[in-house]
């Protein structure tokens, strides 16, 4: 296990940080959020040219075959810039699910397009009543001739409205929370019976409630083995969770830096507030929280690719717990140390706070992962 970035990772981090600095200022991001679908297609093409979209995709299918640590390096930089482009939805979750579960034909058919930036995917797994239980799948896929007909609802599907293809989990057998009996399907977002109710999220992204009403698909729409999707879903969710922690590490880093900068310039009682020891200690605790969370995140990222599911789950849950706590502390204290200014929409710190809070919620909050970590001891 290596705790230092290799040369490729250093180069990647440098170029991604440079991109954020040059092309993704806070005000630019605000403009991008107002675009159709809530992100910039132009920037997405840039990501493709830079090879970022290909990064985690297997070499055999048009990608660069990067490790989860490689992708974490990139995600950390994206977190620093509060990037709203659908990297998580399309590449980490979407391409991740196809790479994890798909046949060679499906991988060859879909992944090169993702790597080139021409195909967008969204991962529609979580359901309205599922909370954080991944096994909770009420959506049904009933046999329909040679294919299936899907009926059900999916909740808070990020970037569904701009996706070409939705990866939808549905129950082909078993009862609502059984681990067995869940199957993944590739569904055209524009297919008859698919209805989206789309909305902005509080952290500046876009998501949809996805309603499926007797959506007919052929047998070739099945991704992976019928009824055996849960191990793949868990693997995808774990990898996404640790990558979200990496994104959070970048967001925390930026929030701490902004806060310290503010403390150096904001003058009250005749001196910069950064000279007050009680506030210095708060800032030090924020920095420490970020460092511990980031360290554990990279350690977890390092075991995700090779470990057995139990080891993987414990590593990811530990990182997610640490991230949840650190993100809360840094978000809340970052705003507090900015005083009234921290409450304004014009200051970036509040936006980092919102993103960190929502990352905690995604794929299970700190309490959920604490229970999971304990259960797998």
């Amino acid at each position: 296990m290596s705790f230092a970035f290799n040369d490729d990772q250093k180069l990647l981090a440098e170029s991604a940080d440079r991109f954020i600095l040059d092309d993704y200022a806070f005000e630019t991001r605000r403009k991008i959020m107002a675009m159709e679908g809530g992100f910039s297609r132009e920037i997405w093409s840039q990501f493709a040219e830079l090879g970022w979209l290909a990064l985690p995709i297997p070499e055999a299918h048009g990608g660069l075959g990067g490790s989860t640590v490689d992708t974490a390096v990139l995600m950390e930089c994206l977190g620093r810039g509060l990037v709203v482009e659908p990297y998580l939805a399309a590449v980490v979750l979407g391409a991740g699910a196809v790479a994890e579960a798909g046949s060679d034909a499906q991988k060859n058919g879909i992944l090169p397009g993702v790597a080139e930036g021409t195909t967008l995917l969204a991962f529609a797994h979580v359901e309205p009543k599922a909370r954080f239980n991944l096994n909770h799948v009420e959506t049904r896929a009933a046999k329909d001739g040679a294919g299936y007909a899907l009926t059900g609802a999916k909740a808070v599907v990020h970037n569904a409205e701009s996706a070409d293809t939705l990866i939808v989990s549905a129950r082909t057998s078993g009862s609502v929370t059984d681990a067995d009996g869940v199957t993944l399907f590739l569904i055209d977002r524009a297919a008859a019976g698919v209805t989206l109710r789309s909305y902005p999220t509080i952290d500046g992204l876009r998501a949809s409630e996805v309603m499926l009403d007797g959506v007919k698909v052929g047998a070739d729409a099945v991704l992976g083995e019928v009824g055996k999707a849960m191990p793949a879903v868990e693997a995808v969710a774990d990898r996404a969770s640790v990558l979200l922690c990496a994104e959070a590490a970048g967001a925390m880093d930026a929030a701490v830096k902004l806060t310290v900068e503010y403390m150096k310039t904001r003058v009250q009682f005749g001196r910069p507030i950064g000279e007050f020891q009680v506030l210095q200690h708060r800032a030090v605790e924020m920095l420490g929280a970020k460092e511990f969370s980031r360290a554990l995140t990279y350690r977890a990222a390092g075991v995700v690719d090779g470990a057995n599911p139990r080891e993987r789950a414990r590593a990811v849950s530990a990182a997610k717990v640490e991230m949840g706590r650190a993100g809360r502390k840094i978000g809340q204290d970052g705003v507090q140390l900015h005083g009234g200014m921290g409450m304004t929409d014009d200051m970036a710190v509040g936006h980092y706070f919102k993103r960190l809070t929502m990352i905690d919620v995604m794929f299970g909050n700190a309490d959920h992962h604490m229970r999971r970590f304990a259960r797998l001891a």
Partner: protein
Amino acid sequence: MELILTPAEQKFRDEVREFLAANVPEDIKRKTMTGYRLSKEEHVSWQKTLYEKGWIAPSWPVEHGGTDWTPMQKHIFQEECASAGAPPVLAFGVVMVAPVILKFGTQKQKDYYLPRILRSDDWWCQGYSEPGSGSDLASLRTKAVLNGDHYIVNGQKTWTTMAQHANMMFCLTRTDDSGKRQEGITFLLIDMDQPGVTVQPITTIDGSQEINNVFLEDVKVPVENRVGEEGKGWTYAKYLLGHERTSIAAVGRSKAQLARLRDIAKVEQQDGRPLIEDEAFQKKLAEIEIDLLALESLVLRVLSDESAGKGPGPEASFLKIRGTEVQQGITELLVEAIGNYAHPYVPEAMQTGWNEDPIGPEYAASIAPHYFNWRKASIYGGSNEIQKNIIAKAVLGL
């Protein structure tokens, strides 16, 4: 742990409860409970209802339209109002400026403003903070220069809550900067409906616009609108902040929000069981409830001291700190309770006249915005760090 009430107090509680049940309109109740924004008209209409009943300003002296309630009765009243979903009475008039006018104002000011405050004829806002003067309020620079029978005021106030509705502002201004900073401050009552007053909304991180910048440019304020002596405004401001801290504790509202959290946690399912049965969640709920019980106990103690003639001392700062910690803790648990439905941001759902189906459970829409919005509570009214400085200095003598 319920408060133990005497038969007389029980009778009083029942009377209050009955009144509220009959008079809080259903849609106002729903909005207040779910943290949706009320319009100016809705606020004013409810305050007028309280005024007609004689309950708009329980803490004022009876001769000015207050009540002779005991501290326990005032507390019961607050708690019942909160649990009935009655909108909180806006503090700026009744709780903040009125005690200052009562104690330091002229007879003419009392005769004119106090009845108007009771009837909600004026909507007050607070002109304290400035861009360069937040925690260090005494450094404020908005200048008031005496010119015949008027002051001419120039400067900028900020974080002015609900200034967009206000027609009056109580304002700290600098009339002298030759001596100690605290000694050149003057307390003025400014009519907002005049040229030179510009209100500019500030969008907060939850996307709402309830705070403002207020620009004052050659604003004319008659000398008769000065409260007390020129240069003594700092003393009056401190007096006011002491009063604010007992109301900022908001015990009743926190109790009502805690009850709402419980209701939601009973509905939310986690792995096939209600969230409220989860041990980790129960422990967090219990911690907040105990913090709130301790807060309530200290509030009651401070209120009794007040009725015995002792004004709220610097210990009141503890009420602000604990009160806001409890409020923020509850908002945090509400976010946890709703799981994935913290994500959608649909501000229209919180407005009057929105008739679409909710996204996720109906109670979810306002929860995350409110969590982010309520981070202001540990910043406003003297940040919690400043409250600790006050206690260190004034109580501990450090």
